[in-house]
């Protein structure tokens, strides 16, 4: 069974002359253990897709199912709880709390949810992201790339079944970017998460199981990765 499913999902903003069809009717499925890349030019609807998939906004039409639960039936409170349990977001903008150090960012998650990574697992994660020496640092003392890696760690810390990453490698140099993608792949396979990565960078999609391309809100599965390259 698909862990994440979009059925005939469609999203329009505004109406009349200012109407924008950010997402045309789309069916989409992600299985556990799948690493999926979504590529497309700026303004094509990638973030819209990702936030709808993660239950941060409701589609104009259609249905989003996470782990068998239809999101449209849920009140915001329940949706938040579902996000906390199932979804790990890595956002385009930094999603760190400025007055918590790196370790405390994770502690906060322990306060609100059980079943997060164990100490050893977390340590491993920090090491593989190269942030294990930054645990006591506050976000203001981190570089853009470090922040991004901490954000990834934060998304993975809750053991989500779905990882949604919006340009997770945008502020990283290409070595780090490859490494992060490799890591996301490892985690996807190891933890059997469904991982969806939105990216501009077509060099990073080699390792992905599926690649979707969005143009003007229309999402299409690329049969062969090499078609895009």
């Amino acid at each position, binding site marked *: 069974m698909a862990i994440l499913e979009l059925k005939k999902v469609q999203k329009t903003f505004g109406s009349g002359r200012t109407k924008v069809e950010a997402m045309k009717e789309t069916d989409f499925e992600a299985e556990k253990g799948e690493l999926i890349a979504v590529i497309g030019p700026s303004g094509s609807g990638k*973030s819209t897709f*990702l*936030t709808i998939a*993660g239950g*941060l*906004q409701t589609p104009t039409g259609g249905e989003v199912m996470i782990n068998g639960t239809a999101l449209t039936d849920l009140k915001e*409170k329940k949706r*938040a*709880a*579902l*996000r*906390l*349990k199932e*979804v790990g*977001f890595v*956002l*385009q*903008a930094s*999603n*760190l*709390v*400025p*007055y*918590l150090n790196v370790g*405390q960012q994770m*502690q*906060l*998650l322990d*306060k*609100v*949810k059980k079943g997060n990574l164990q100490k050893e697992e977390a340590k491993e994660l920090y090491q593989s992201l190269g942030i294990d020496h930054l645990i006591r640092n*506050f976000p203001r003392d981190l570089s853009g790339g470090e922040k991004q890696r901490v954000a990834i760690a*934060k998304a993975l810390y809750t053991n989500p079944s779905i990882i949604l990453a*919006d340009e997770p490698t945008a502020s990283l140099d290409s070595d780090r970017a490859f490494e992060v993608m490799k890591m996301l792949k490892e985690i996807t396979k190891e933890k059997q998460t469904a991982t969806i990565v939105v990216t501009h960078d077509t060099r990073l999609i080699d390792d992905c199981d599926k690649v979707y391309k969005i143009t003007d809100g229309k999402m299409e599965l690329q049969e062969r990765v090499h078609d895009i390259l």
Partner: protein
Amino acid sequence: MFLAWNEIKNNKLRFTLVIGVLVLISYLVFFLSGLANGLEQLNREAVDKWEADGIILTEESDLRLQQSVLSKEDFDGSGVDEYTELSQLSAIASNGDKKENVYIFAVDPSSFIMPDVTEGNAFVYEGEVIADDTLKEDGFEIGDELSLSSTDETLEIVGFTDKARFNAAPVLFTDQDTLDTLQYGEFAEGDSDAINAFIIRTDNLNNVEADEALQVIDTETFIENLPGYTEQNLTLTLMIYFLFIISAVVLAIFLYVLTIQKISIFGVMKAQGISSGYLAGSVVAQTFLLSLAGVLIGLALAVITGLFLPAAVPVAFNYIEMLIYGIILIIVSVIGALISVQTIVRIDPLKAIGG
């Protein structure tokens, strides 16, 4: 608490300012409550000392002691457990050095309103008085000969008693004969029957059977009708209530601004799935911590100030009342935080994360 506390630790200046404002407000509240209390005592101490349930005055007295003139025979004690007569005179007393406004109360030495002597002796011979403690602080001593403004007669302080101020002036206690002499001269004919009031103790004031021309009122009503007493209390109490509102508003504004600044941070946390309830709880917890700190510091400052105040400043702290006011301050502060809670609930995580 986790979020609340870490934020405070990381924004010390900002939160020190918030606490500072709360300290000032709560200091003012505590000080005013001390002042209100002190002024109250200044007015009523001597009456409270009677531990009486009521007082009988004439109908025409307007509830004022000096305007109530009646005779010892006007009341026979029916319906009360205990009763005694009280006569009074107000005067300016001087020991040659110092002058003071005083009330002279004539009391029966065997009655329940006879004060305990804390220093010296009780009055025995004509012209002897027991004086309130505060006169001692003002430089009056046992053995002092007091001249009065209204008569050539003199009085002698033979003892002191504590907590005996009435309507903002210290009280001198003496017997009826002495007071008669002061009022009518040494050669006044026989015993005067004129007194100002009967002080009574009873379980039920309604059972007291008094003459038509008299009225029976409870002690509290009597006190409330002391000149200026209620007005003064009301003014100070009103100021305190205003301060409660001010502290709620100030804190509400502060927290609201802080919350607005943190919208994107809250949005990000909400995107991750952290509930509004948790975030709101953290703001409330933060408010609680801030107001608790502010109130405790304010309390400490007020108490310390109280220790160094000269005796002439009528500030008397009632710690239970201060505790209640402190709790009210904390509660209204937390109520002020609820505006921010509403803001947090309304934050759309999508707007906050951009993208």
